[in-house]
């Protein structure tokens, strides 16, 4: 079945990327930053340098492996921040309603009106470049979809008998949100989170490409691409491999997200998002 192919292919690719990142020190052939050797500059892929070398003569294979660490950290952590913010705002807005709901709705609409990458760019321009700043910039700018989804799901669950029953049994609001509502909306939130992670990986690459994310010489895929701009015709491998890494990671996360949706969120099977 097509649905399961999504899940399996996405899962396998994603696990491969995770392994690459986690075991980079063992898998890499050289140090990604220090082992520069201009004697080896711009060598095409071969036996010694599987993916070739860049302008400073660093091993692209090793740098791509280490780049996975940065991409995954930024993707996972920033998306976790987004999810926590989105769920907290969305569930509480949906549950309590009233002025708080109006306020959260206004905030969400504002966030949706500003392209999140531009917003992140602005934050990065204020903060100094670096991984912490990236996490803040990407973690604060992409929660609106999660928030909308949580709010809508909460609204529909709020009238369910078991939520009413919990109120009648004397449960506090926070307890109801955590024990009655959250477990029942988790499926779609995980799906959105996974898809959002792919977006965060792309955003990190874009910011780093623009020089606002991870600064050289640290091996972020985005900054590697940025560095490779001038050699794209003469030494295409310098940009191809980090580009391929981004492509595979984002593809893996999107396939995984789609696959999870089919399992966790059976209602959405009919619609194709």
């Amino acid at each position, binding site marked *: 079945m097509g649905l399961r192919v999504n899940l399996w292919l996405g899962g396998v690719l994603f696990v491969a990327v995770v392994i690459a990142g986690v075991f980079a020190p063992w898998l890499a052939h050289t140090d990604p930053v220090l082992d520069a050797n201009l004697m080896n500059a711009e060598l095409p892929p071969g036996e010694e340098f599987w993916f070739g070398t860049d302008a400073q003569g660093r091993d692209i294979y090793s740098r791509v492996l280490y780049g996975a660490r940065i991409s995954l950290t930024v993707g996972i952590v920033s998306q976790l921040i987004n999810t926590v913010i989105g769920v907290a705002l969305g569930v509480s807005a949906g549950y309590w309603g009233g002025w708080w709901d109006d306020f959260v709705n206004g905030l969400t609409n504002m966030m949706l009106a500003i392209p999140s990458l531009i917003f992140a760019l602005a934050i990065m321009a204020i903060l100094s470049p670096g991984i912490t700043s990236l996490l803040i910039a990407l973690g604060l700018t992409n929660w609106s979809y999660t928030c909308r989804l949580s709010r809508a799901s909460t609204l529909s669950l709020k009238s369910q008998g078991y939520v009413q029953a919990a109120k009648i049994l004397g449960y506090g609001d926070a307890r109801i949100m955590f024990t009655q509502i959250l*477990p029942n909306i988790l499926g779609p939130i995980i799906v959105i989170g996974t898809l959002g992670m792919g977006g965060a990986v792309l955003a990190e690459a874009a910011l780093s490409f623009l020089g606002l994310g991870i600064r050289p010489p640290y091996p972020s895929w985005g900054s590697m691409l940025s560095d490779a701009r001038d050699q794209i015709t003469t030494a295409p491998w310098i940009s191809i491999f980090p580009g391929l890494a981004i492509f595979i990671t984002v593809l893996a996360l999107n396939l995984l997200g789609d696959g999870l949706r089919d399992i966790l969120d059976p209602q959405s099977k009919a619609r194709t998002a």
Partner: protein
Amino acid sequence: MLDLAPPTAAATAEPVLKIEDLAVHFPIGGFLSFGVQTVHAVDGVDMELRAGECLGLVGESGCGKSTLALAILGLQAPTRGRILLDGRDVSARGTDRRERARAAQMVFQDPYSSLNPRQSVRRTLEAPLKLHGITAKSEIDDRIAAVMRHVGLRPEQAARYPHEFSGGQRQRIGIARALILEPRIIVLDEPVSALDVSIRAQIINLLLELKETMGLSYIMISHDLGVVEHMSDRVAVMYLGRIVETGPWERIFTAPRHPYTRALIDAIPDPFGKGLGMRISGEIPNPLSPPPGCRFHPRCPEARDFCKVEPAPELEPVAGGHLVRCLRAGELARPAAGVSEAE
């Protein structure tokens, strides 16, 4: 005047629930209080529920019976009036949710949406106990086992999840959840209408047994007048937010005075006959602008000109415990059987 109510314990006991002039109004539409209209969902209801009694609450959808139930359970803040549970005013602000939980619980209509699909039955029953300060594992186990047996389930079935049960069994779990805190009052919201017809008798019998053995008091909302007649000790008929007739079940079903009550009873298809009795036409008017005078007059087959003007009729006693809100209640004292010919 002859009171048909049998001298049961219910008739003499003091009320466990007393509702005084309760009103729930909802603001509708408008922006920043401009053009806001008010729906009078419940509009001045006085009601008593005595210990061990089942009070049937009937009326068309939109009559306010569900809003009234939610107000009793504390899910809907009243606009005015008081709700006294065992003599204590629980409608005041700042009343502890948990204290009210121990006094009144609810059984829901839909046994599917009323159980959390991600919680085992045990968790559904255990969490409220812990919340209410019962933490000893042995006591929790004992109380869960006892309540499971009371509703006709085996204690070991508590380890299962809702989807492993049939509709009737789910409703038993819903009843167990309502019983776990040992409340005095249980609100039954259409307790059997979502169940298969061949399962309903099981639940109706169970509810009646529990009422006897545990001394429970019920407020039962139902549109099935057969179920209401079978289960209720007293009945209250609501129309547009007000009680229009209330009394012992025999009076309501054999000698109804209000034309609306008669219409509700006559609307039930008689399985032994053909055709339907007296009918009222039209539907509940827009509650935003209830008609002047008697609110039922636009649909009432017995309405006269004086029914259309203020003041609205009051709920007046016609016999022991039997009250009717009708200007013509005195003239309309005919047996129900005659009503169908009166068309």
